[in-house]
């Protein structure tokens, strides 16, 4: 059961109301549902199905993944239904493809914002929107942020980055960190895989970086698109253009949903991809599992010593001193403690 509540992020245009949240900018006649399937017009207003959440799960910040943001931070993770993409490989399709795929039958009770913020405060944790597409829950994000930020409770997204610039401008002030997927290096490949253009995703990354939100990037190695050397090289170059300290997470492809016939990514391929990232100038390239502890470790770009070690489930051991390498003093980019802010 999903509740529809009044939405924001739309404007009146000739012939109807236009959603301004994602770059599809759907023009909605009365009764129309947007491409995302979780926003629809009813009379002179737009409603959203994303004020509810399918889960309220605790997990560590490293599992999103964030490796340079508040190590060990527990996150109360919410997943409103829906996604603006229809990726063929989505492991979370039962939640993300709500309204698009008949197999997605989720219940999403209304989020009790006050209770969620209180729960995060009590545990000394943060709030996350993940598993589905958080940008479609911009209204919930703004409300969570308004209540969480004064209490020093961080709010993070694991997102596809598919927002309009005006939506980015509104949500950036309440977001402490984002991890955004870059799933392909060219428009055709990205459209084939996701059903959406790539350029807005890259623009969102630039805008959020410029706004001082802590940014990490993930790339799943999808056969036929991002798993190819040429695509990986171009994605790595883009990530490096955000700054060589931008952490880049390489994700193993899991054969599932509409891509069941492919092989899972081999460890060797992930190691190749990591080398491509480093060759592009990226200082922090990560692989969660396939390369063992070394794939999760942060090494000082100055002297090479391991400064942060991580377990698979988020257990983290940091040797950093005030955010710097204990050996050579090189600052390690990130938000390592509660009182650090980017761009300050």
């Amino acid at each position: 059961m999903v509740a529809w509540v009044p939405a924001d992020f739309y404007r009146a245009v000739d012939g109807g109301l236009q959603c301004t949240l994602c770059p599809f900018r759907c023009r909605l006649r009365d009764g129309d549902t947007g491409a995302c399937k979780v926003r629809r017009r009813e009379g002179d207003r737009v409603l959203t199905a994303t004020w509810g959440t399918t889960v309220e799960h605790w997990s560590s910040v490293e599992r999103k993944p964030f490796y340079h943001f508040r190590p060990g931070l527990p996150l109360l993770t919410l997943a409103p239904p829906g996604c603006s993409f229809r990726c063929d490989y989505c492991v979370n399709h039962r939640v993300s493809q709500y309204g698009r795929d008949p197999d997605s039958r989720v219940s999403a009770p209304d989020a009790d914002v006050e209770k969620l913020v209180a729960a995060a405060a009590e545990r000394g944790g943060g709030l996350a929107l993940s598993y589905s597409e958080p940008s479609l829950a911009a209204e919930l994000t703004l409300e969570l942020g308004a209540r969480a930020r004064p209490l020093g409770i961080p709010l993070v997204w694991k997102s596809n980055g598919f927002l309009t610039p005006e939506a980015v401008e509104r949500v950036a002030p309440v977001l402490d960190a984002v991890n955004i997927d870059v799933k392909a290096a060219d428009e055709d490949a990205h459209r084939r895989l996701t059903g959406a253009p790539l350029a807005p995703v890259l623009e969102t990354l630039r805008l959020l970086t410029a706004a001082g939100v802590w940014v990490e990037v993930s790339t799943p190695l999808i056969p036929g698109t991002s798993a190819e050397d040429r695509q990986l090289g171009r994605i790595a170059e883009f990530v490096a253009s955000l700054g060589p300290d931008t952490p880049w997470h390489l994700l193993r492809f899991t054969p599932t949903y509409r891509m069941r016939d492919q092989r899972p990514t081999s460890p060797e391929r992930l190691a190749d991809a990591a080398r491509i990232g480093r060759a592009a100038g990226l200082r922090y390239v990560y692989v969660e599992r396939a390369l063992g502890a070394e794939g999760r470790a942060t090494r000082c770009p100055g002297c090479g010593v391991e400064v942060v070690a991580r377990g698979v489930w988020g257990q983290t051991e940091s040797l950093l001193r005030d955010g710097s390498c204990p050996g050579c003093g090189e600052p390690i980019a990130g938000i390592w403690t509660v009182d650090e802010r980017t761009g300050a």
Partner: protein
Amino acid sequence: MSTEYRFVEDLPDLIEASEYDDHPEGRLVRLRISWDEKGVEVLGDAFRPDMLEALLEKMGPDAVEQMLCG
């Protein structure tokens, strides 16, 4: 009647990353079956989630618990 899927915070791993190279086609499925007075629990892990889900659904469970990614 289709199987109900419940999303849970954590499930134990039955496959280690050190085994990835041994199964390049991703055909490994591992099960752990246990029982108590409440019933039988089947814990599964696989490189191909759909294969595991199909197997579990054939057992006629009350529900299948699944971890989400991210």
